[in-house]
């Protein structure tokens, strides 16, 4: 502990001449009585001890944190919002279709012209020998010479909407469903037991998040976590529901819509995983929600078989928003790709 007199530690001569907060007020020098008062208060403060109870609780919490096992999960990739089909997208689709038709119909002509124009030495051996692949000479040549075939892949935002049926036996987090829960999980060292408030808005589940709140939602919610108290207070009664079967190596897409009302939540994680708590995720992603409903898609390949998979989300409002936020989710679908 330094015992340097404060007067020496803040001598005006030690102040640089410039700075964003160069003192506009004069009077950095304390009067004798002020300095003496400060010294007395400082001395008394150094002798003050935190209450024993606080000290013990702080030590217990720090040690618990130190002993907390560090289990890793795959870092969640950020999701890209999938734009809703719009008139612009429709026009683009029609244009692409027309262009595609034009290419296909015009391919024999183009092929003929190309064969006429390309000099023999510029033609690859395959072309020269007529050793075409299954796509035929027109396709091969077009792939080599036409910029149409070197266009980048369509980004996810332009991907077609899911057409495959959802693998979920019911709409997760639907108002009429009795097999899900959303619980407050402000103390992550214990299992969540307190039901969180939920609301429904145009078919969406909306979860208000006060400052400092963290909630965990799960569908289906495991029965071993449904305490009697919870069942008495939960918005819906727990009921069994068929979970989803994931097969190793198969590709899936989880799609959903999400948004927030009020300040944006600090973090929203959403994933597919085993339905039993703690919902070990087969795939999880950080969802960057905005204030308007957006569609998201999470593509993944199941790393292992799972006969009882569900969907879960974790949302936090810990970034210091004093005003409550409200996270909304709807239209969760899981389909094979």
């Amino acid at each position, binding site marked *: 502990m330094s015992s340097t007199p404060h007067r020496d530690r803040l001598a005006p001569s030690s102040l640089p001449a410039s700075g964003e907060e160069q003192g506009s007020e004069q009077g950095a020098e304390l009067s004798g009585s002020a300095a003496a008062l400060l010294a007395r208060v400082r001395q*008394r403060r150094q002798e003050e*001890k935190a209450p024993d109870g606080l000290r013990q609780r702080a030590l217990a919490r720090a040690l618990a944190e130190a002993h907390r096992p560090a289990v890793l999960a795959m870092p969640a990739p950020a999701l890209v919002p999938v734009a809703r089909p719009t008139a612009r997208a429709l026009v683009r689709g029609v244009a692409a279709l027309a262009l595609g038709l034009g290419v296909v119909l015009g391919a024999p002509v183009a092929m003929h012209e190309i064969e006429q124009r390309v000099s023999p030495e510029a033609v690859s051996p395959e072309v020269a020998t007529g050793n075409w692949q299954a796509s035929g000479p027109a396709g091969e040549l077009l792939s080599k010479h036409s910029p149409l075939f070197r266009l980048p892949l369509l980004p996810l935002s332009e991907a077609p909407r899911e057409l495959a049926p959802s693998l979920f036996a019911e709409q997760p987090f639907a108002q009429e469903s009795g097999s899900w829960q959303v619980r407050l999980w402000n103390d*992550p060292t214990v299992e969540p037991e307190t039901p969180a408030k939920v609301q429904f808005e145009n078919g969406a589940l909306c979860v208000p998040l006060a400052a400092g709140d963290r909630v965990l939602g799960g569908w289906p919610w495991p029965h071993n976590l449904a305490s009697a108290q919870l069942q008495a207070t939960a918005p819906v009664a727990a009921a069994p529901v068929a979970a989803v079967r994931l097969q190793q190596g198969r590709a899936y897409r989880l799609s959903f819509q999400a948004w927030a009302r009020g300040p944006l939540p600090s973090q929203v994680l959403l994933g597919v995983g085993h339905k039993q708590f703690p919902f070990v995720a087969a795939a999880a992603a950080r969802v960057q929600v905005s204030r308007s409903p957006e569609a998201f898609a999470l593509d993944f390949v199941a790393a292992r078989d799972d006969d009882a998979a569900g969907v879960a989300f974790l949302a936090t409002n810990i970034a210091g928003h004093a005003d409550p936020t409200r996270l909304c989710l709807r239209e969760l679908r899981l389909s094979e790709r």
Partner: protein
Amino acid sequence: MRSNAVSDWSASGLEPELAGRSADALDAAPAAQGGARSARVEQIVARHVDAIWRTARELGILPRDLDDVVQEVLVVCVRRLSDIEPERERAFLLATTSRVAANWRRTRRRRPADPVDSFDEIPEGPRARGPAEALERKRELELVQAALDEMNEQQREVFTLFELEELTAREIAEQLGLSESVVFARAQRARAVFQRCLSRAEARTDVNGRRG
């Protein structure tokens, strides 16, 4: 009951410091390190919990919230234990206290602590030798608290760390991500506020004394 889910989900985003490390690297951490880690945590709590508690209180945290704030500071410290050099523990902890207290005030919309309540809750302070001294001490503490309340958040932070906890300007600058000149400037302004409060109090005392 502890929950594995904490780790599963938290590792997906709540603990960025874990992200990027391979599972092997973490598995390979010898158990002996766990013991050394615990010992260091115990040492840190024993050495610094009083200063954390005092600083949080001076930064406007109400007595009923001091428990939570102190624990939050220590949790941050434990999570970043490997990054904290032993000789900078105190500065790190007090700067973290300042940040946690600022967040706490913002999220909970706390008003500055009531001067009497906050200092009346001192449980193990030095005892006054008589009623007159006790009264004088109380008056002085109220005066300091009034000055702290009059400062803005930045001045209050620097005044508490610089004047009351006696961190150096360099330590404060490093921990709060400021330049030393900014720290000096804020300390200077905070002193001006403190001096002004004291002068007002002295003037009132003179007036009352003359009237009395």
